[in-house]
C-alpha cells in the first residue's frame, strides 16, 4: 500500500485549488487522482468566456481558467495521476483506485479531499413521454461532443431547460451552423444568468418559451420532432397549447447533481437538500480528516466560488494534518430559515474560526429589495441588502469570526425578507 499525507479525488478546479492551497500551507506529500485523461475537470469543455471575474479580475474562458491552476500545480511540483478512477474510500481513509497503467492502487491517506464535481440529471430523472430515438442528449454531453471530440450533434435543435449550460449550448450550436428552434423552460423564469439570456438567445433571435415543457418526442431511429406545450400554474401541460416542432435533436439542460457514490460508500452524511456531504467551517465532512469542496458539495454557478471554497478545504486539510484543528469542539448548526433553501457550511465549530467565514446560500424564489439576515440564537448579527436575489444565483455572505465568537450561539440561522417577484426576461 502506498502512503500520502493528502489524497485529492478529482482534478477539476476544486481539486486543483485545494491541492495548491494545501501545499502553500506546508503539506509536502500530496497526490491528485483524476479519472479523465487530463486535469481541469468540466472547465475543459466550457470554452466560453465569463470565468474568473472574482478571482483574476478578468474574463477568462474555462480552459484558460483551468490552465492557470494547472501551470501553478506544475510549478509547485504537485503529483497527480490521470486516467485513474477512484472506486472506493473507506472510513479509515484508504483510497482504492484503478488505472489502465498501474491496475489496482491502494493508498493510505492522512487526509482526503473529495472534489468529484457533479453530473447532469438525465432524461429518466424528469420522465418525458414518447419514443426513445437517437438524438437526445444532455446539454453537457453535447458540449463535450462538440468542444472536445469535435462532433456536431444535430442540425435542428430544441433545448429543454434554460439553465446556463442549455443557454450556452444554444449559442454554440448556432455558431456551428445548427438551427436552434426554441429553448423551453418549465418555470416562469429562467435559472440562467441574464447575461447568458441576452448573449446566447437574444443575440441570435432564439425564442425562450417560459412556462413551457416538452410533452412528447417523436421519431423511430432518430428524433423527428418534439411537442411543446404551455404549462399552467401547477406546472401541468395545457393540451390545447401543444405545438409540434420538427427537429432532429433534443438537448436537456435540467440540472446537475453532486457526484457522491464514493461518499455514500464511506458512510459520509449527505444533506438531502444539496445532495452533497454535510460540511463544517473547515469543509470537513462527517468523517474526521475527509474534506470536500466544489460541486461535489453543492452545485455552483460560478467557478470562482468553487476556487474559494476549495482553498478553504485545502488549508483545513493542512491544519488537520498538522493537528491544528480542534476536532472536539461542539458543532453549532447553521439552519436555513424563511426564504433560504440551504446554507453551506451546515455547522460551525466557532472556536476554530479565524479571520472571516463565508456562508454560501441559495434563496428559494426571486426577490427584489431584499435583506438577508444572519441570526445567532435569534439575534441578528449581520444583515446584507440585495436589490435582486434569485435561486439561480448563489449568494455569499462574509462574516467576521469575532461576531460569532462574541455571540457563542447554540444555533445560527439565515432568513431572507423582501418582495417576491415573478420576473421574466
Amino acid at each position, binding site marked *: 500500500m502506498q502512503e500520502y499525507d493528502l489524497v485529492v479525488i478529482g482534478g477539476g478546479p476544486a481539486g486543483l485549488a485545494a491541492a495548491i492551497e494545501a501545499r502553500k500551507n506546508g503539506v509536502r506529500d500530496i497526490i491528485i487522482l483524476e479519472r479523465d485523461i487530463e486535469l481541469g475537470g468540466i472547465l475543459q469543455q466550457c470554452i466560453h468566456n465569463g470565468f474568473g471575474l472574482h478571482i483574476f479580475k478578468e*474574463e477568462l474562458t474555462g*480552459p484558460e481558467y483551468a*490552465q492557470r491552476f494547472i501551470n501553478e500545480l506544475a510549478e509547485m511540483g504537485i503529483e497527480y495521476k490521470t486516467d485513474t478512477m477512484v472506486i472506493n474510500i473507506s472510513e479509515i481513509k484508504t483510497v482504492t483506485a484503478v488505472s489502465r497503467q498501474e491496475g489496482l492502487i491502494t493508498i493510505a491517506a492522512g487526509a482526503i479531499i473529495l472534489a468529484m464535481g457533479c453530473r447532469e440529471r438525465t432524461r429518466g430523472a424528469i420522465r418525458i413521454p414518447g419514443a426513445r430515438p437517437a438524438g437526445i442528449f444532455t446539454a453537457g454531453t453535447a458540449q463535450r461532443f462538440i468542444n472536445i471530440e469535435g462532433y456536431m450533434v444535430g442540425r435542428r435543435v430544441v433545448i429543454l431547460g434554460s439553465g446556463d449550460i442549455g443557454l450556452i449550448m444554444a449559442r454554440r450550436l448556432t455558431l456551428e451552423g445548427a438551427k436552434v428552434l426554441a429553448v423551453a423552460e418549465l418555470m416562469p423564469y429562467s435559472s440562467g444568468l*441574464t*447575461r447568458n439570456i441576452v448573449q446566447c438567445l437574444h443575440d441570435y433571435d432564439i425564442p425562450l418559451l417560459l412556462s413551457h415543457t416538452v410533452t412528447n418526442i417523436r421519431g423511430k431511429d432518430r428524433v423527428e420532432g418534439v411537442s411543446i406545450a404551455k404549462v399552467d400554474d401547477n406546472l401541468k401541460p395545457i393540451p390545447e397549447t401543444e405545438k409540434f416542432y420538427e427537429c432532429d435533436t433534443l438537448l436537456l439542460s435540467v440540472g446537475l447533481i453532486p457526484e457522491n457514490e464514493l461518499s455514500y460508500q464511506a458512510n459520509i452524511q449527505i444533506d438531502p437538500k444539496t445532495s452533497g456531504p454535510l460540511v463544517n467551517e473547515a469543509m470537513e465532512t462527517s468523517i474526521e480528516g475527509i474534506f470536500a469542496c466544489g460541486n461535489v458539495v453543492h452545485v455552483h454557478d460560478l467557478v470562482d466560488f468553487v476556487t474559494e471554497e476549495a482553498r478553504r478545504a485545502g488549508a483545513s486539510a493542512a491544519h488537520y494534518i498538522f493537528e491544528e484543528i480542534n476536532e472536539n469542539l461542539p458543532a453549532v448548526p447553521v439552519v436555513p430559515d424563511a426564504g433560504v433553501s440551504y446554507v453551506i457550511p451546515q455547522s460551525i465549530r466557532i472556536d476554530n474560526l479565524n479571520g472571516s467565514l463565508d456562508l454560501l446560500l441559495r434563496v428559494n424564489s426571486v426577490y427584489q429589495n431584499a435583506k438577508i439576515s444572519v441570526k445567532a440564537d435569534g439575534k441578528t448579527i449581520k444583515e446584507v441588502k440585495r436589490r*435582486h436575489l434569485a435561486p439561480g444565483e448563489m449568494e455569499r455572505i462574509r462574516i467576521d469570526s469575532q461576531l460569532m465568537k462574541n455571540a457563542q450561539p447554540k444555533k445560527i440561522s439565515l432568513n431572507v425578507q423582501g418582495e417576491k417577484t415573478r420576473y421574466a426576461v
Partner: protein
Amino acid sequence: MQSKEIICTACPIGCHLTAHRDKNAKGGYRIEGYSCKRGISYALAELTDPRRILTSTVRVVNSTHKRLPVRTAEAIPKDKIFQCMQEVNRIAVKSPVKMGDILIKNIADTGIDLISSRDIK
C-alpha cells in the same frame, strides 16, 4: 421618435432599459430604466458598437486532442461573428500550442487576433 429596449448585462440585476433617440442627449440617446450609471454606458455601447468575445474550437492535426479551444483576444463587433466563424472553421493547428498563441492575426479585418485558450502538447 425611435426607441429601443435593451437589457443591461453589466451586472446580474439585469435592468430593462429603454433608449430614446434624442439629439440633445449625450451620445444621441436618452436612456431610461437604469439603476446605476453603468447602465447608460452599457446601453450606448450596445446601440453604437455592440461587441462580443467570440469563443469556438479549431481542428488539431497531430495530437490526442482533436479540438483546440480558441477565443478572440478582445471583443469583436457583433455583426462580424459569423464572418469570424468562417475563418475559424478554415484553419487547423499543429501541436504544441501554448495558451495565448496567436492563431489568426486580425481576424475578419476586426483588428483583433484569434488566440489559443490553452496549452496542448
